[in-house]
């Protein structure tokens, strides 16, 4: 494991060039991510499969900032985004490299600017850094890796939240669940049941 982690870290600069949207995963992994995480949490407190405790705390802080809980609804942390990302990273060396590299960059940059790890930095400092790396217009050689990483962190946090029961409920979207009622021809339903082998 530790050897893989070293490779992953070295791979970050290369992996940072990996275009967003190119998550080299078998889709099956993601399909089961929410489900797998739920099963694991049912057994007790979630123990990260891939990230170190420090990385995981940073990841959770980041997810919380991207989609925070508010008076209306839970946020990305409650919806399981850190677990979701941890689960996917444990299945994909490329994604793992993007996140270990990105989280290290984030900590390094906060230490350089504010003399504290990202999770320990003041909320105002955390926000200031995110506002820099959330926008491509701020792209410089120094911020470039951070901007690439934020794209990934935001994308996967959003994916996790808005496919979770909490996120779906927040929007009133009716996704990812069976419909309560089909206003469709009966034969369509019968046909589906027959094909499923359940009818």
């Amino acid at each position: 494991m530790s050897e893989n982690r070293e490779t992953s870290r070295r791979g970050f600069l290369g992996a940072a060039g990996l275009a967003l949207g190119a998550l080299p995963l078998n889709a099956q992994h993601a399909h089961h991510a929410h489900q797998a995480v739920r099963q694991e949490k049912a057994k007790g407190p979630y123990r990260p499969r891939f990230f170190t405790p420090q990385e995981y705390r940073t990841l959770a802080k980041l997810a919380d900032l991207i989609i925070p809980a508010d008076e209306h609804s839970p946020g990305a942390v409650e919806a399981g985004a850190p677990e979701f990302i941890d689960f996917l990273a444990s299945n994909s060396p490329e994604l793992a490299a993007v996140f270990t590299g990105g989280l290290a960059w984030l900590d390094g940059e906060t230490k350089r600017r504010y003399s504290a790890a990202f999770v320990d930095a003041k909320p105002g400092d955390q926000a200031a850094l995110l506002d820099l790396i959330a926008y491509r217009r701020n792209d410089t050689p120094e911020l470039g890796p951070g901007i690439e990483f934020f794209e990934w962190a935001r994308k996967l946090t959003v994916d996790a939240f808005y496919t979770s029961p909490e996120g779906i409920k927040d929007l009133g979207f009716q996704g990812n669940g069976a419909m309560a009622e089909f206003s469709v021809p009966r034969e369509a339903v019968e046909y589906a049941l027959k094909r499923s082998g359940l009818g």
Partner: protein
Amino acid sequence: MALERVNAVVVGSGAGGGIVAKELAQAGLRVVLLERGSWVTAYDCRKDDLRNQRTTVLGNAFGPDDERHPRVVVDESGRERTLRASEPGYHNNAGCVGGGTASYGAMAWRFMEKDFRMRSTYGAVPGSTLEDWPLSYADLEPYYEKAEWEIGVSGDDAGNVFRAPRRRPLPMPPLPPNRECQVLRPAALRLGLHPFDIPMLRNSVPYNGRPACMRCRWCVGFACEVDAKCGTQNTVIPAALKTGNCELRCDCVAGQVLLDERGRAAGVAYFDARGRYREQPADLVVVSCAAIESARLLLNSRSRLFPKGLGNRHDWVGRNLQGHTYPRAAGLFDFELYDDQGPGAGIAVCDYNHGNPGLAGGGMLANEFIRLPYQFVAQVPRSAGRWGRGHKEFMRKWYRRSMSVMGPVQEMPMFDSRVEVDPVVKDHWGIPVARLSGGKHPHTLEVARYMAGKAEAWLKEAGAIHTWTVVPGPGLSGGQHQAGTCRMGGDPRTSVVNRYCQVHDVDNVFVIDGSVHVTNGGFNPVLTIMALAYYASAHLVKTWKGTRMRS
């Protein structure tokens, strides 16, 4: 072990290949249909927002897989990258039985008469290889009809005063309008436009032994759970298999078209599901792999007589790669539009396909398919912020109160937007991969900006309180609407196939898919690919014995 000789090998089981296989098999030819992917069903993909073929962040649910199918893409600055199949810029369509038709949105457009005569209509466009087709709308009309009735199309284009003449109406009525359509229709009428119900390859009533659409939200990008979406995998391919004359071989990757010493096709070399090299001898070879892979297969079929690739004597194979440039306008409303009624898209206008002042061509405009929430996030305007409370509130406030209007702009083909085979990178089977380069013509972008403005005006008329437009950048087009790389034409020096999709130089090789499109219409191209497949098949069935006799 040598395989038994057959009459025809069809490479690719998508919109074109599926139809050709069925037409030839029903005419009594013995056919082998090779498909690089598997037979994917709705059960394999289930209904999961994260497994959408159009949102590739988690890999392609309908193939090809990321591990074995790299491509090289050269961007405008000349930078080369080797991409996985699910990366943006790869220009994937699909890799499964049915090809793109297993997971498409299923809009079923006939091109307009002028779409076949772009050069005569608009004249030469500097920097573009804009040309007329060697056949007309009237030549294809009976085959459009055949596609509509055999594969199955619902909709009602009677309100489309711009449509080309048709002999028969569509076989199925449109689905009832969803809320977006109900808001957009009167707005279009107030603007003096001519809105109508989009023709869709989707059952609105039970048809051809399959049930009606149950209006779920997982449509474009997904397989249909009740098989109400009509693709080749649930229509013509089963019909082909039923004849007993067609054998479908899945997970088979074609490497090259084999030529005999006289320069005629002898069959196809491929790797089977277990990775074994096989040679399938055949009298005819039909290449139906979609524009990028069809060009790659021809370019990889090198021989003494065709050192630059089969049919490529004059360097036209792989040229003119095009797709569609999709300008979009999005609008926010102070009332709810989301009603969870799939497929979402339902209303269109063709007022801007032609006759736009000072512009060559245009495109239809339609409302968007159901937007999954995480896809909507990508459309959130910068001003809403990219993280934090404001961003979350924007989603909560507007997800259900927004809609988009967009449309495919007919592109000006470019000789230098092209498919080559890469000199270095090979796929899992050792076959040189496709190498893509080029971009969009500036006029295409000009038309796109114009269309974005029209889309925005429609949303404003519909009551949008805030709107914005998105026009794509100058990078290469292709993707699911990829076309143009084996141009059809009368002159062998400036095209690859004749009007019957027959390769000029090798009379027993046919390219039957979007590759042969001279121009790609201002419409989703699949029904035209299907019509061409019926048209070319009819010719093949009549003449194939003559073709064989000449060898």
